[in-house]
């Protein structure tokens, strides 16, 4: 049973206070949906969770251990999907996914192939990244997180550019990830059905500070 806890998190971006006093608890099998208006700090919170940003105050702990004390270990247990798809235009779809899979324990070419099949892009395996549509690029990026296991998924607007079938595939992938004891934190504006999930409204933390 893994536990990922944030406590008293404060985020300051460009001398502007984005949120403060924010906390969350995420356990194996759990899901956290981040909502709130544009600019309320959903992406910043996900980057804080990933360790790409350092919080101005507060702590993040994984099973009681501070995340900041071992960044490589934390990086190894999470998958982050940001706004950019990290698909190299000159590499084929398979090369793109296999490279990221090989960097992580438990990932490899076979897992990459299976991940492509899940997102229905196995027929594109040999196509260079520059010929992909935005939705196909996003599918490649999502296939990347299936190609190597990691307990924590941080998804920033994962449904951007996806068609309805791909959204359903993503929902199914998240459900089986949670069933296997994984956890998910996702920021989204479009409805993403995640079954039982906690919701964290970042707009609330903003007004709290303003008051």
């Amino acid at each position, binding site marked *: 049973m893994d536990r990922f806890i944030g406590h008293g998190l404060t985020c300051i971006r460009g001398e502007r206070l984005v949120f403060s006093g924010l906390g969350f608890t995420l356990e194996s099998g759990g899901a956290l949906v981040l909502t709130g208006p544009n600019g309320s700090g959903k992406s910043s919170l996900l980057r804080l969770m990933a360790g*790409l940003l350092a919080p101005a105050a507060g702590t993040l702990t994984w099973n009681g251990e501070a995340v900041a004390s071992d960044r*490589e*270990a934390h*990086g190894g247990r999470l998958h*982050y999907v940001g*706004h950019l798809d*990290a698909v190299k*235009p*000159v590499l084929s779809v398979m090369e793109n996914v296999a490279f990221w899979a090989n*960097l992580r324990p438990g990932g490899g070419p076979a897992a990459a192939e299976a991940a492509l099949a899940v997102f229905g892009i196995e027929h594109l395996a040999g196509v260079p990244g520059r010929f992909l549509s935005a939705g196909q690029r996003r599918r490649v990026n999502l296939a990347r997180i299936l190609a190597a296991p990691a307990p924590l998924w941080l998804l920033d607007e994962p449904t951007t550019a996806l068609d309805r079938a791909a959204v359903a595939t993503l929902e199914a992938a998240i459900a089986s990830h949670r069933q296997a004891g994984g956890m998910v934190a996702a920021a989204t504006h479009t409805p993403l059905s995640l079954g039982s999930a906690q919701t964290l409204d970042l707009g609330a933390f903003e007004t709290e500070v303003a008051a």
Partner: protein
Amino acid sequence: MDRFLSLVGRDLHLAQRHGFDSLLVVVFFIIAVVLFPFGVGPEPNILARIAAGVIWVAALLASMLSLERLFQTDYEDGSLELLLLAPLPLELVVLAKVAAHWLTTGLPLIVAAPLLAVLLNMNGAGFAVLVAALALGTPTLSLVGAVGAGLVLGSRRGGVLLSLLVLPLFIPVLVFGVGAVDGAIGGFAFRSPLLILGGMLLAALALCPWASGAALRQALG
């Protein structure tokens, strides 16, 4: 170690698919050196006298040319964020990218240098030392350049800023690189300048990946 090698392999692969980029660096190097006889006149003695300096300065400028791209493409397409989150130390990520950068730009310069030395009528006694000095000096340039490339990440006009930041730091490499070659031609001891170049390489190897890694974290934070 496997992950380090797969990262180097990926960058080499990318460089090979982009083919043109590393070729451009060598062509720039050759053209820059070939311009000098036109500028200072075809007097063989004068050319022989300045050969080592010209080749070294051109090599510095040529390796500057490709430094801006070192992290830029990965930064723009989001790969750099994922590399930061990869389960290997960021310093090793930097080192892998620098190694690939040197293999695709520094190594071709070393291969082309003896040819240019012939063109400039350089004394044959300096050839071996020129190659040795470049072999020790160009990795240092890539390493120091990686710090600058990390610092200018995300800024507009990064290329010009990078030159201003990094070129002054290249001066020690230039001084001892030219000193070694001139020493060999003049019949003096060339061992100590080479040793100093080696020392600078080791120091850069020890310090630059950390500095560059810190700059990358800053750029993405």
